[in-house]
């Protein structure tokens, strides 16, 4: 009985420590287990398995449902379940790519309006929409464009300048 409880408490303390000293325990091994401690062998999974095994065995034994051997089996099953759940939760969060960072190439093909007239041989300014936000860019064009003209982005030479041409309707 005491063994089971001790095992459970050890797992809980391990988890608490890993929460307080975030990443510290993984760092103890300092790269030795690099990559190993991800996925199935990550600390929350292991700690969850250990603690759940102990607490599960203690509950089974304490209720008098089975003997010590049976209790150990029940604890192991519960521990595996907890570990698997932890693993799945972590995976789910890791895979969740909520926000895709906009890239410069995304500007290609978008349309916008000229806010500062573009001369034939210089920079003007255009207001584009990128990933739902307005973005003002320096812009060049092969033909002079007046303010308010609607343009397509033809090319993106640098991160802050674009090459545009007027929209032909």
């Amino acid at each position, binding site marked *: 009985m005491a063994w089971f409880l001790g095992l459970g408490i050890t797992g*809980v303390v391990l988890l608490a420590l890993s929460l307080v000293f975030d990443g510290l325990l993984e760092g103890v091994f300092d790269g030795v287990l690099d990559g190993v401690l991800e996925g199935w062998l990550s600390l929350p999974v292991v700690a969850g398995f250990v603690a759940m095994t102990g607490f599960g065995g203690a509950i089974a034994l*304490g209720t008098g449902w089975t003997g010590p051997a049976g209790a150990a089996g029940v604890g192991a099953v519960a521990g595996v379940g907890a570990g698997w759940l932890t693993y799945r*939760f972590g995976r789910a969060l890791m895979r969740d790519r909520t926000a895709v960072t906009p890239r410069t190439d995304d500007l290609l093909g978008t349309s916008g309006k000229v806010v500062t007239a573009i001369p034939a041989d210089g920079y003007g300014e255009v207001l584009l929409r990128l990933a739902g936000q307005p973005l003002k860019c320096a812009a060049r064009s092969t033909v002079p464009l007046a303010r308010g003209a609607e343009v397509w982005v033809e090319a993106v030479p640098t991160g802050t300048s674009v090459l545009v041409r007027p929209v032909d309707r």
Partner: protein
Amino acid sequence: MSPVVIAVVGVVVLLVLLALVVVSRYKVAGPSEAFIVTGRRGKRSTDPETGRVFTDNSGQKVVVGGGVFVVPFVQQRFTLDLSSRHIPVAVRGAVTLRGVKANLEGVAIVKVGGTEDAIRAAAQRFLMQQDGIVGFTQEVLSGALRAIVGRMSVEDVIRDRAAFAGQVAEEAEASLSGQGLVLDAFQIQDITTEGSYLEDLGRPEAARAKQEADIAEAVARRAAEQARLKAEEEIAVAQRTLYLKQAEIKAETDQAEARANASGPLAEAARQQDILAEQEKVAERQAALKDRQLDTEVRKPADAQRYAAEQEAEARRVARVKQAEAERAAGIAAAQAEAERARLTGEGEKQRRSALADAVRLEGDAEAAAIGARGAAEAEAMEKKADAFDRYGDAAVLQMLVEVLPQVVAKASEPLAAVDKMTVISTDGASRLTRTVADNVAQGMELLGSTTGVDLASLLKGITAKEGTAKEGITAKEGITAKGEAGRDTSENGKVEITD
């Protein structure tokens, strides 16, 4: 406490801790920051164009405004602030396109670009020195501003926003884009020039504005002054009216007062007038009484006497009128008879006179005919005589003159012939008498010459000296003949008449 309860509590605590541990590794980026999560290996990929195999940098994750699961110890998370940075930029003594030196103060708003490329570039440069962005960019932009101003004139910097923005974009492209920085705005806040260039730019307009303002002010002042004067005029008119009214009222009140003051004396005067009127009546009555007494004592007898005298005078006048009328009628009758007589006498006289006039007229006619006939005969004789003279020449004329001369001398001595007795008292003696005759002749000839223009002496001299000249001689000759004739006519009457 039973071990079962402890185990159950332990399970609950375990579950909570598990959840906390997993969730605590999920990091969420704020809206103005970017996460750069490093530590993973990139994926191997193949360049589709060159076929080269390389490991991309997908292991270095850039998260903007989202969440990311950071594996403890394996991965590292860094935060890059994306918010704007306010950068004051000042340039002193920048030389503009036309050589005017200008001092400029501007402000730039710079931020790290929002795209993955820009964040990666900026993270490499500024992640550990984000406060250095301001200083670094300030220096770069100061240089850029100096370069921009050098390509533009002061007026364009002030006025041509588009051109300035274009220049700024060009500079920013060259200096900032590669570092992942975005120049959101760049504005000139203040521009001054060395010397008074900018002030001079505005002076014409300022002068014009001042002129217009002065004109407007003057016009307004004029209008105000006119309005004020008009108001004063109206006030004066109103005051005049008021004074007139006051004077009128005062006159009325004075009048009333005077009347009131005078009422006492007037009443007194009226009473005295009444008294006088009564006295006048008494006097009138006395006068009437006196008049009546005079009537009876004086006027009536006088009237009677006057009437008697009038009657007598009237009778006399009537008698005299009657007498005068009778005399007048007699006079008229006598005058009428006289007039009738005169009329009859006049008519007889008139008939006699007209008969007489007829006789005279007939006599005249006959005489005129006789004279006409004689004249004609004489004219003919003269003509003949003239012809004869013409033929005779000056000798004949001289002949005639010589014939006449004794008569002239005789006539001249005629006054002396009338002398009964003559005593000559002269030193010359009796020869004085013959000289007087000669003087008379000479004076007669002189008189003839001065009155007729015919110089008899010279004529005689000319005839004796010369055989006569042309027409002048003839004219003189005619004058002489006429003279001679007249002399002959008048000699019959015994006197010499000298005419033209």
